[in-house]
């Protein structure tokens, strides 16, 4: 898939993400929009997982530590054919498996997450297992920037470097916001690059909405013998103009007028891109 095709897909994914959230009347809108380009690249260019290979012991693992951005994961999994997109209409409904955080009841989900600071330790476990078994599969995990205040991340960071897990790539969806406000003001985790380097990781800081940069950073270990940290600078609410960089959209649901505006903007973008692609 070309960058243009992926970018076109990203508009469609954002559109169905917002549709699901609107339908459910709940969801983590801002953070799902900030990480969807990362997931788009992972699932369409990097990970060797598909509905057919999901139970293979050799598949790549993707463990979403920032579980609240589950809507992004769900729309990407639906797009990859793990389940019909229509199932997302049951998001947050009584007895639906499509709840507000990832669960293994949903095809394609590796681990049940939602409590923050859990994905990296689990990922260290799967990466370590791959090393012990001399297998080639890689493990990826996605963290939020606010999430880095959880101490368990740093326990796992130490262990990943200690064991030289170059088959592990962690990505920070660094959208610089969390519920209470700007991450720098709530609990400053910068300088992130220096911190992860000091913990023994190989670090790359990129534009988390740039398909070329994402692809390059995620294609292989940044350095042999070290775990990789990709700090992806992103914009919370990316792709919906009135949501971009606005904290209240962390778990905001658009009203009918806002929703209509956002959908119209998506449709205009899609039409424009279809023109370019055809």
């Amino acid at each position, binding site marked *: 898939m070309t960058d243009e095709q992926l970018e076109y897909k990203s508009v469609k994914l954002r559109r169905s993400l917002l549709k699901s959230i609107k339908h459910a009347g709940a969801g983590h809108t801002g953070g799902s929009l900030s990480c969807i380009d990362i997931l788009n690249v992972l699932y369409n260019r990097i990970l060797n997982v598909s509905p057919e290979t999901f139970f293979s*012991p050799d598949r790549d*693992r993707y*463990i979403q530590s920032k579980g609240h951005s589950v809507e992004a994961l769900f729309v990407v999994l639906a797009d990859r054919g793990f389940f019909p997109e229509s199932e997302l209409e049951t998001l947050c409904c009584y007895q639906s498996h499509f709840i507000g955080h990832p669960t*293994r009841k949903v095809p394609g989900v*590796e*681990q*049940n*997450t*939602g*409590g923050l*600071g*859990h994905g*990296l*330790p*689990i*990922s*260290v*476990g*799967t*990466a*370590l*297992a*791959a090393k*012990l*078994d001399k297998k080639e599969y890689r493990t990826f995990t996605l963290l939020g920037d606010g999430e880095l205040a959880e*101490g*368990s991340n740093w*326990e*796992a960071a*130490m*262990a990943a470097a*200690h064991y030289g897990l170059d088959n592990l790539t962690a990505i920070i969806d660094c959208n610089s916001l969390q519920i209470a406000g700007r991450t720098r003001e709530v609990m400053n985790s910068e300088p992130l690059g220096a911190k992860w380097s000091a913990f023994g990781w190989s670090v790359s800081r990129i534009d988390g909405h740039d398909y070329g940069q994402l692809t390059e950073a995620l294609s292989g270990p940044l350095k042999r013998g070290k775990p990789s940290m990709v700090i992806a600078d992103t914009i919370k609410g990316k792709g919906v103009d009135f949501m971009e960089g606005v904290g209240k959209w962390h778990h905001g649901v658009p009203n009918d007028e806002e929703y209509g505006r956002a959908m119209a903007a998506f449709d205009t973008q899609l039409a424009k891109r279809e023109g370019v692609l055809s």
Partner: protein
Amino acid sequence: MSTPAASMYSEAAASMASELGLKKGKANLEVFAATVEELASKDRNVLAVVSDSRGSGKLGPFSERYPEQLIELGIAEQNLVGVSAGLASAGKTVFAVSPACFLSARSLEQIKNDVAYSDNPVTLVGISAGVSYGALGTTHHSLHDFAVLRAINNMNVVAPADNYEAREAVKAAAALKKPVFLRFGKAPLYDLGFEAEQPFRIGKARLLRNGGDVAFVATGEAVIHALLAAEWLKRNHALNARVLDVHSIKPFDTETVVAAAKGCRAVITVEEHLVNGGLGEACAAAILESGHAGCRFRRVAIPDEYTVTGSQADIFRHYGISMEGLAQTALSLAENNVPVS
């Protein structure tokens, strides 16, 4: 104040044990380590994951013989459990070994989410459990582990009472492919016997002694004291005490516990745990819901107070988890002529 008691048994209790022909075995921790090593020797997927706890887990020899099967994570219990969940999800048979006090508290959220909720088959091995650490104090005691782990869906909670049960529990946990918490102490234990008649099975209580006057329903390393008390009551007061060894706190053998309530005038639960949320409350609920609540009922456990200081033996004796203490409790209930329903 007195010097710390070294023995878990008074002279009278020790001689009662020898008159019953009970043999002193090893600490369950040592049996755990030997059994895991045996499993590891046959299957390179068997891993012991430790948090600077290989020494206290008696895994020194294991780490020398199978260095690639011992994963050291340093003093970081949250990471210990999270990494163990990841290893288990990738097909490893994982024993996560850490002092019970830290494992069941600091890493409780990892146990709840990464192990139980995600259904990753980790065997959590709580070492030096209960008040094994004695005078090291409350930071090192685990008197809450039954309560918190019972309250987590998809957890199995097992407290072996002797070396036989410890060995069988380790093997059963590995074979079960489900989340399990095993609780081990470090004091040498008597072998309780009845291995052929009452084989170990997770979820099934073992009847160690039958009787119809009072029933001791005990778990883990407190069971032996109930067994000695039962014999003391027989000899000194002609009372017939039943002794149930409920090694599985979860799943819980409701049927056998309720049968004890139906068949005896009094039920006394015995556990090395806080009185809240453990075996005693599980029994109380089972008995009440069964409709056979006509028996008298008493929980012998560590009370909800600042735990008395001293060795494990001192703490047990102080709170009546001893042959003498349990016999006294049984007498006080049995002599109170409450009609049986």
